[in-house]
């Protein structure tokens, strides 16, 4: 088993409980793309603002009691223009494709959506190819 698989699994179960629980109890899809899209289009209301508030509180608790350096490992090594280019592509891509790792990856796969399965396979493969080109394709 790979290093750190138990905490990854524990975190995944938490994410699954959050996504499945929100859907079962409230009927809503916990997709960050959808939440952000509505927040950008106008003031976020109702359950979406509460969900973001919960995420922010989790991060705040971690900031005060957790290992911040480990949680954001690698963030400070990314050149600012890479951050800007990546952010732009992630914003356009998730909006066009109606979802990201949470909406398609967790909720979509859990409800056996063909569109989500296709989306996940494509963005995973393209992300792996991108890393391969940057790290092993002579552009490093």
């Amino acid at each position: 088993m790979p290093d750190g698989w138990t905490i990854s699994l524990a975190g995944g179960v938490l994410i699954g409980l959050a996504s499945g629980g929100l859907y079962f109890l409230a009927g809503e899809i916990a997709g960050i793309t959808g939440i952000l899209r509505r927040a950008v289009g106008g003031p976020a209301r109702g359950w979406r603002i509460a969900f973001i508030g919960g995420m922010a509180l989790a991060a705040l608790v971690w900031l005060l009691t957790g290992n911040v350096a480990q949680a954001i490992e690698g963030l400070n090594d990314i050149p600012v223009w890479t951050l800007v280019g990546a952010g732009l592509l992630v914003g356009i891509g998730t909006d066009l494709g109606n979802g990201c790792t949470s909406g398609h990856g967790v909720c979509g796969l859990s409800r056996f959506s063909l569109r989500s399965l296709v989306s996940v396979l494509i963005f995973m493969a393209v992300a792996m190819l991108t890393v391969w080109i940057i790290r092993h394709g002579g552009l490093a």
Partner: protein
Amino acid sequence: MRTLVAFIAGLAFGFGLLVSGMSSPAKVLAFLDLAGTWNPSLAFVMGGAVITATPLFWLANRRQRPLVGEAYDKPDRQMLDRRLIGGAVLFGVGWGLAGICPGPALVDLVLAPAATAPFMAAMIAGIMLSARMRRAPQRPDAPEPGQP
């Protein structure tokens, strides 16, 4: 009650990202780096999440309406269109460049505001840009993009 459910779900979701390592670009890029120091542990994040959420979605599909809500949000589009595929390609390139996707970006913004701000600002600009393109008048023969 709906607000409380969403708040607790957001709390668990946020801790899930932090505990699992999804908030760390280094870990995400190590997972994506098949040809290098590949660390497959993050596969257990999506695996664990899907295995946990699947029975809850299944149970929800056997109910008429949610306990705290009007109706279940059922994205019912089945068509695989260029928008879905093109969006996934662009998202994949962006995710591979920095190792950050939207959920972790929100969490990282609280942990390291200055370092995360350029990504967050660009991501919001990207969403606005895309929304403007989506709202642009379509050619009469172009199919309506529709909703998720």
